[in-house]
């Protein structure tokens, strides 16, 4: 059997992607509304609620309205949540409970096709969420154009990364309840400490170092620069980090999940 990833991966991964997209279209109301409404809640709570107390925030050598500072963080967080949860919980349910994997493994799709398709559809959810939140942020007048358009391809890339993380966690978890652990240890800390709600400058040096390792930090950096119109060459490092990490995590997730499902 050709066990190399490249040898087993084919265009059929898109069939798995299509299947998952088709399911999302069947249940579109529950898929479309949250990414549109969640950021509105965040903007109301943090932007207006908290923003009433923290009116100006200093970032990149300038003072910004708190709402303008925070809004791009919401875009990045939305991409992360929607893609990571799609593969963590969604793929877990499909593969373990709905037996989707068992049904597909006897068709011409290889395990790699199926799992890559899972990552692609998780990334699509992330991209869709990113675009929806960007739309809301734009309607609030908080996004600069054309630089904000960069957020779309960036969300696709980050979607692939976080969907891969999600699939990896699903592969590690014997039971669905075990998934609370990566949420607690990885996803929630990223949500809080990636420069989403406040600049990292004020943090103790060691926390800042840890924050630099979190992938969301780099996504937030680029997303914020794009919405505020602050794009600069130094963001190349953030992009490089995401570009290098994504295939590594995707490969790990596929290998781990395949080993788990085919004994």
């Amino acid at each position: 059997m050709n066990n190399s990833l490249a040898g087993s991966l084919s265009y059929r991964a898109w069939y798995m992607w299509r299947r998952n997209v088709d399911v999302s279209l069947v249940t579109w109301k529950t898929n479309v509304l949250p990414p549109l409404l969640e950021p509105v809640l965040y903007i109301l709570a943090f932007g207006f609620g908290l923003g009433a107390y923290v009116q100006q925030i200093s970032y990149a050598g300038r003072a910004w309205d708190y709402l303008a500072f925070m809004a791009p963080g919401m875009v990045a967080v939305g991409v992360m949540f929607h893609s990571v949860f799609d593969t963590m919980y969604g793929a877990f349910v499909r593969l373990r409970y709905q037996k989707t994997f068992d049904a597909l493994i006897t068709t011409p799709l290889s395990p790699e096709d199926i799992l890559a398709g899972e990552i692609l559809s998780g990334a699509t959810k992330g991209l869709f969420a990113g675009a929806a939140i960007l739309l809301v942020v734009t309607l609030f007048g908080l996004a600069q154009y054309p630089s904000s358009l960069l957020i779309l391809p960036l969300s696709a890339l980050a979607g692939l990364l976080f969907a891969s993380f999600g699939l990896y966690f699903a592969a590690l978890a014997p039971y669905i309840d075990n998934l609370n652990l990566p949420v607690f240890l990885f996803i929630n800390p990223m949500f809080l400490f990636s420069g989403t709600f406040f600049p990292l400058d004020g943090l103790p040096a060691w926390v800042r170092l840890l924050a630099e390792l979190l992938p969301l930090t780099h996504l937030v950096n680029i997303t914020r620069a794009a919405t505020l119109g602050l794009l600069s060459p130094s963001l190349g490092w953030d992009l490089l980090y995401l570009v290098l990490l994504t295939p590594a995590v995707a490969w790990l997730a596929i290998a781990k999940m395949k080993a788990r499902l085919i004994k």
Partner: protein
Amino acid sequence: MTDPVVKATALRKCYGDLCAVDGVDFEIGRGECFGLLGPNGAGKTTTVKMLTCALPVTGGDLTVEGLSVKEDPRAIKYLLGVCPQEVNLDPDFSVVKNLVVYSRYYDIPRAEAEKRAAELIARFHLHDKLERPVEDLSGGMKKRLLLARALINRPRLLVLDEPTTGLDPQSRRQIWQEVRDMKKNGLTTLLTTHYIEEAELLCDRLVIMDNGRIIEQGTPRQLIEKHLPGGGNLEDVFLKLTGKHLRDE
């Protein structure tokens, strides 16, 4: 046998010390309906899963149309129609959508898929439920849909793992009729079952497995004549060979 469709040689599947399939040899001839019988845990589903390339083999070899499951799983899977023991339809999709989405995996173009789906739905008497989600189907209808799904790619070899378990006599007879019709059209079939009557009725040849090994094989008639020369049925042969005690899994 000249030109067998399936050939298993010294086939093994082990989980650590436990060998679910422990050195099995058999061949399935073209157009034949081949039965795999045995008590719970005998290794039937494990054999089927190796054949359908869902499980890697531990030892020996297994070929379909001369292709080895170890070398060409994808090419083999294009040739198979698989009706699994566990229902694994897509709960989010309607009856017709289950078939259309599934046919995509075989590169069947949309229009052709819709045509085939409509034919199969009519043939398996599912037209009343066309647009219903599969969760609304009864157990028997789900099994019929599984069988319809297995035929969407016009397979060369049909693999049926307990296709009639849990069905009422009417549904069971209907599935038997389908299998016989497909046989008339020359389709090669591998069937596992616990219903000895079913095996006697449908299978040209069968093997009885126990503890991962084949303990007897032949045509239903041969087995009865060999083990019960005074007369009896296949069920008596089965019980004689595999004992009357329950299998604890």
